[in-house]
């Protein structure tokens, strides 16, 4: 790609960016939120048409007017939000977008090819499962398979590890390794410096839409990359002062919750979070984390067991009751659950407070009050939006998260449940989100943090609970002093008691 320029109504997302990818290499594309990484790759994938510059493939100039053209040229992209059809099976998703399908779907052949490919690249997935039943990690595998199925030679992965556990991420990089060994070219968009250092051969850094540099990974350091990315020296560590926890705020006892498929997603789980405390929840994606959070805020009924908030039994109370009791939830699915994409910043800012004073007066909404509240949230949480009247669908992931965070944390919550709060965010935004959550802990809130980023959990949590298949494997009182292997074992399904028992007998 040469001198690619892309402008959106007044914003230059890419300015004369050069980028090249060699066969058989992993090329990391690094940059902050809004640095233009995704835009550049969307241009390559034919989703956007560049305002300037050209794309060359094996020396030949290309004009992609749609992703279809790009796919025909052998370029495949796996987005952060997978382009899959949830209600269809894996194999049906594979043939999505194939033009010359026979009128009777070749199910057998498709299944065989899926199994071949998944075998070859270590992408285990059940071809007959419906996509909505799969965990995020599995869906990603389907999305990658989809590209391989279409015989892509160049694979673009947009923040692929943001949704994966350490183990899954390692698996993914094994897959990528296998593919590059066979001559595939892989671009992966990321802002996790560790994985960029560990798994790429070259790194291209973008900042504010401009190319900073393309360097060989061996010839650089993490600190150097961070500096190139942000434009100044950055401190990566986060400060979590020791605090004495207070009384129990959020508690569940012998909780059993059914998942979407009608099977128990949470089995006989007892947990509690106290004031001034962050309880981390670790576990591989889809092991009941979401169902747990939903049950703890009234969005999912508890089949058995109890949910207690500040001493009051709120089992199966309505979501509004939980909101009134100042239990706030930051869902993982920002645009799908947490925000209304077609409504503006102002309207989204009151989603949790529209029904009470001062926003609602006598059944009517005081839009003046709303506007001033929205401005407060936007300025306090640094939401970068053109105005409070901008539809939130036009905001970037980081700004969506800041807006949601601002909304949920402005009510001085008693308990905050945050699910993957830094998923897909850049260094600065991640740091900001973590600091905000810790500030809530300092203020006296009980914080429950679900994450699949173990580093994040270790640096944030006072205690760490590990889930596997909806069961509690144990709660670690000093997670940062626990060997990572122990946590890994627990995530894979060995209860803590068993591990400790083994240690004692040894």
């Amino acid at each position: 790609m040469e001198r690619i320029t892309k402008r959106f109504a007044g914003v230059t997302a890419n300015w004369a960016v050069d980028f090249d990818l060699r066969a058989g290499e992993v090329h990391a594309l690094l940059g902050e939120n809004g640095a233009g990484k995704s835009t550049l790759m969307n241009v390559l994938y034919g989703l956007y048409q560049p305002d300037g510059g050209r794309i060359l493939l094996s020396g030949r100039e290309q004009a992609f007017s749609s992703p279809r053209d790009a796919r025909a040229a052998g370029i495949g992209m796996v987005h952060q939000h997978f382009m899959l059809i949830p209600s269809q099976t894996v194999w049906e998703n594979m043939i999505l977008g194939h033009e010359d399908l026979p009128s009777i779907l070749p199910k057998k052949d498709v299944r065989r090819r899926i199994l071949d490919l998944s075998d070859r690249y270590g992408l285990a997935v059940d071809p007959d499962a419906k996509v909505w039943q799969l965990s995020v990690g599995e869906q990603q595998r389907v999305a990658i398979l989809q590209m391989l199925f279409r015989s892509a030679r160049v694979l673009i992965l947009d923040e692929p590890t943001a949704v994966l556990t350490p183990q899954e991420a390692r698996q993914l990089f094994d897959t990528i390794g296998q593919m590059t060994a066979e001559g595939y070219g892989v671009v992966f968009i990321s802002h996790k410096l560790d994985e960029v250092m560990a798994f790429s051969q070259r790194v291209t850094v973008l900042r504010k839409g401009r190319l900073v540099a393309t360097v060989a990974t061996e010839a650089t350091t993490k600190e150097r990359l961070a500096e190139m990315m942000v434009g100044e020296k950055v401190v990566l560590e986060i400060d979590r002062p020791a605090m004495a926890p207070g009384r129990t705020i959020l508690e569940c006892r012998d909780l059993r919750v059914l998942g979407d498929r009608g099977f128990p997603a949470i089995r006989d789980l007892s947990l509690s979070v106290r004031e001034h405390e962050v309880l981390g929840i670790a576990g591989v994606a889809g092991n009941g984390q979401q169902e747990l959070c939903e049950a703890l805020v009234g969005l999912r009924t508890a089949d058995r067991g109890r949910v207690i908030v500040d001493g009051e039994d709120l089992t199966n109370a309505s979501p509004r009751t939980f909101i009134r009791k100042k239990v706030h939830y930051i869902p993982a699915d920002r645009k799908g659950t947490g925000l209304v994409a077609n409504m503006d910043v102002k309207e989204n800012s009151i989603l949790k407070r529209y029904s009470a004073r001062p926003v609602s007066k006598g059944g009517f909404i005081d839009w003046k009050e709303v506007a001033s509240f929205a401005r407060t949230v936007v300025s306090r949480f640094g939401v970068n939006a053109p105005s409070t009247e901008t539809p939130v669908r036009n905001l970037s992931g980081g700004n969506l998260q800041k807006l949601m965070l601002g909304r949920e944390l402005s009510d001085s919550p008693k308990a905050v449940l945050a699910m993957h709060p830094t998923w897909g965010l850049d260094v600065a935004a991640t740091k900001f989100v973590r600091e905000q959550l810790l500030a809530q802990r300092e203020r006296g809130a009980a914080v429950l943090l679900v994450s699949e980023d173990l580093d994040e959990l270790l640096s944030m949590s006072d205690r760490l609970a590990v889930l596997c298949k909806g069961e509690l494997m144990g709660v670690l009182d000093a997670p940062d002093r626990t060997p990572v292997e122990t946590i890994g074992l627990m995530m894979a399904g060995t209860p803590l008691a068993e591990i400790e028992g083994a240690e004692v007998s040894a």
Partner: protein
Amino acid sequence: MRGLLKVEPRLSSPWWLGAVITFSSIASALALGGVFLAFMGVSPLEAYAVILRSALGDGYGVSETVVKAIPLTIAGIAVMLAFTMGLWNIGAEGQIFIGAIASAAMVRYFPSESRAVALSSMLAAGLWAAFAGYLKARWNINEIITTLMLTYVAMNLLNYFVYGPWRDPAGLGFPITAPFPDSARLPTLWGTRIHLGIVLAVVLPCVAWVVLRFSRWGYELRVMGENPRAAGFAGMNYTRNVALVMFLSGAIAGIAGMCELSGLQGRLQHGFSGGYGNTAIIVAWLARLNPLAIVLVSFLMGVLLVGGESLQVIMRLPLSSVMVLQGLILFFILGGEFFRKYRIRRVGAAITGDMEREER
């Protein structure tokens, strides 16, 4: 790169775009409709002139247009309410029938209770629609199917009464009921056929506008319409509101039926509504679900309907030719949606050169 036309998503739509697109859609529809009229062997300009002259040319024309606009506005508000919440109530026609049947029943069996007529029509049509709403809320049964099917049930129910037990013995065998007594008629105004329903057609859109824009419940409706998951997350009760909104939507459509019956026709008859419930769907979308715009659009549709009747008489065209025009307008409006969401640009060498200049 070659100079090509490219389609790409719009990041924002300027405020004037909606109006420009609506007007150009109507203009395109009239243009294409002109071609169609030419094929029918009449001069399009003359035909449009007839439409305008007959609907707006004199006091009588205008009053007739208003008469048509009244039920359209009321039914338009009814479906708009459901559409705003993301519910596809396309059964307003059936709900109009039910409202009318309930009014006729009240007039027939409780002639002294003339004030309860409106109430009974709202209640009956509201429950009729709420049934579809309940099925949707409880078992997630598609409301498009149920409201459409219920329309046929309502239509046949009406036919049963006018051909059967309620047929006017003095009606020479026509499928009509006996005329309403004067006490059960809405007063007409200014010596025209415009009836008291006009008050509702003015008040309802204003109320709807205020409720949707400023009330807490209106905010809830809009959130639920845009994203039911987020609505649940915010503590809104989707299930209850589905039934409630369908009830209100049906009730308002029922009122439209009542007005048409006791304001205008004075007796129940076969083919009673003339498709107002279906045209209301077009009206609501043409108005982009804006309650105030519904009044305007209804008037425009009234012009087409009145003009269409004259076309029939003066130019000997079938009434369905006006339906074709209506269909074309809706078609272009929906097509125009595309331009609100996307823009078409030329990309090519010129822009590259432009960029290099800028860089210098």
